[in-house]
């Protein structure tokens, strides 16, 4: 393998990794605050893809506006889903399994809804920006650079919100001790709903950016949510920075790994890495070792 090819693969890995990181970060945010695994996360991603397809590819809305509107729509739908399902179950005893069942149910429902609304055909979305960046032998489409830039900007904004704003403090406090947070005046229910919506919004951003690269279809969320689970395990369950680092790590290892083997090995590499992690460091990169 030449140095240029290797470098190209690393860059591709970083770009793909930024998408894994976005997906994983949303999942980690939701798990961290509510202790639920959101199995419908891939379908919020899918809805984001279809909304961009509808607005940008069909209605020719400006791409920036299309991405913003799609993300906002997914966040609203997610907030509604949270209030109608998870919120009710969180109040009950022994809810851990029922939230898995209900988010799986939502996942199946949304897949079939998309199938009924848009059909099973793969729908393609044009690139937001045309052209290719060329430096010497090194070539990279501007669309991919845009994907990375948007992902980094969104994650940095989210990290800043968690670190510096009142809302962010409330999310972190609720995640670390819900009772103590309630006592100091944090309305946990509202925080849960908003966090769920924000997590889904991160998935929608990922979908909006990836829609021109992969095609849009009702099952597009499945491969991504599986990778998001891997990322969350790598980073440490519920850790936002862990999911981001885990996402980039997975992207790079996958991209380099498939050039050394072949693309059929992609999932083997991802899960092999996860199993190796569970073996030597089961609490993940940023998780806390439990005694």
């Amino acid at each position: 393998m030449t140095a240029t090819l290797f470098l190209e693969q690393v860059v591709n890995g970083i770009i793909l990794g930024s998408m894994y990181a976005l997906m994983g970060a949303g999942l980690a945010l939701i798990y961290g605050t509510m202790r639920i695994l959101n199995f419908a996360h891939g379908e919020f991603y899918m809805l984001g893809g279809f909304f961009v397809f509808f607005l940008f590819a069909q209605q020719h809305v400006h791409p920036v506006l299309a991405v913003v509107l799609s993300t906002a729509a997914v966040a609203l739908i997610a907030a509604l889903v949270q209030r109608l399902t998870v919120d009710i179950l969180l109040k009950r005893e022994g809810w851990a399994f029922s939230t898995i069942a209900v988010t799986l149910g939502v996942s199946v429902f949304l897949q079939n809804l998309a199938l009924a609304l848009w059909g099973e055909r793969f729908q393609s979305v044009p690139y937001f920006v045309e052209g290719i960046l060329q430096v010497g032998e090194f070539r990279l489409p501007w669309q991919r650079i845009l994907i990375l830039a948007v992902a980094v900007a969104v994650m940095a904004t989210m990290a800043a919100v968690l670190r510096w704003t009142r809302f962010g403090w409330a999310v972190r406090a609720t995640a670390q001790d819900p009772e103590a947070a309630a006592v100091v005046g944090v309305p946990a229910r509202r925080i849960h709903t908003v966090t769920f919506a924000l997590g889904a919004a991160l998935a929608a951003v990922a979908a909006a950016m990836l829609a021109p690269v992969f095609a849009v279809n009702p099952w597009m969320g499945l491969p991504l949510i599986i990778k998001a689970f891997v990322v969350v395990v790598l980073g440490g369950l519920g850790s936002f920075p862990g999911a981001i680092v885990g996402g980039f790590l997975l992207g790079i290892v996958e991209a380099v790994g498939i050039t050394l083997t072949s693309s059929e090995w992609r999932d083997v590499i991802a899960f092999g890495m996860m199993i190796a992690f569970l073996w030597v460091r089961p609490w993940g990169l940023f998780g806390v070792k439990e005694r």
Partner: protein
Amino acid sequence: MLEVAGLDVKYGDVQVLWDISLTVGTGEVVAVMGPNGSGKSTILKAIIGLVRASAGRIALDGKPLAGVPTHAMAGEGVSLVLERRRLFPQMTVLENVRMGAFHPSARGRERERLEWVESLFPILRERRGQLAGRMSGGEQQMVAIARGLMSGPRLLMMDEPFLGLAPRIVGQIVDIIGRINAEGIAVLFNEQNVHLSFSNAHRGYLLESGRIVLEGAGLAMLEHEMVKRVYLGA
């Protein structure tokens, strides 16, 4: 100021509190003493709404607190320092303390209250940037009390504030309770130790198996035959 009357609490089918009635007057320090598992914590959790009462009445200055959600209690002037500190371990000392002023009613006076609690516990100013989870038990208790005071409560409740602390630290916390009370804040605390409970409170209640069996002035409680016989081995 605080009136609890006929309070019953059940966890599922198991009743843990029976007909609890107690009061805390303005500016009073009141102790609830009882052995492990007698239901002390549950009384405080019921008052602040973390557990639901199946019967009874809880009122603050005549205003019923039933139906006020826990996250709104800071606005009513009620604060609770939970058992075993319960800090936010991944947040710094300063972030923990400032979280105590999260309720909208507390935001305007956050700065002056921060200054006050840091004068009560000077170590908090030195440790502002440290992660709360990495402090010793005594230091964590100071952060927890400081956090509880940041909402500017009229009633500060403390669930076993001396649990697991070295005697020197216990002395400091006792001293702090006195200083908090001197500011006109009423204090209601739980404790298992008879002396710690009743020698540091104006009035006290003795709780056994979820029922109040005795009440009286703090020092009188120490002299009571029943307390002496059962808890002091006299």
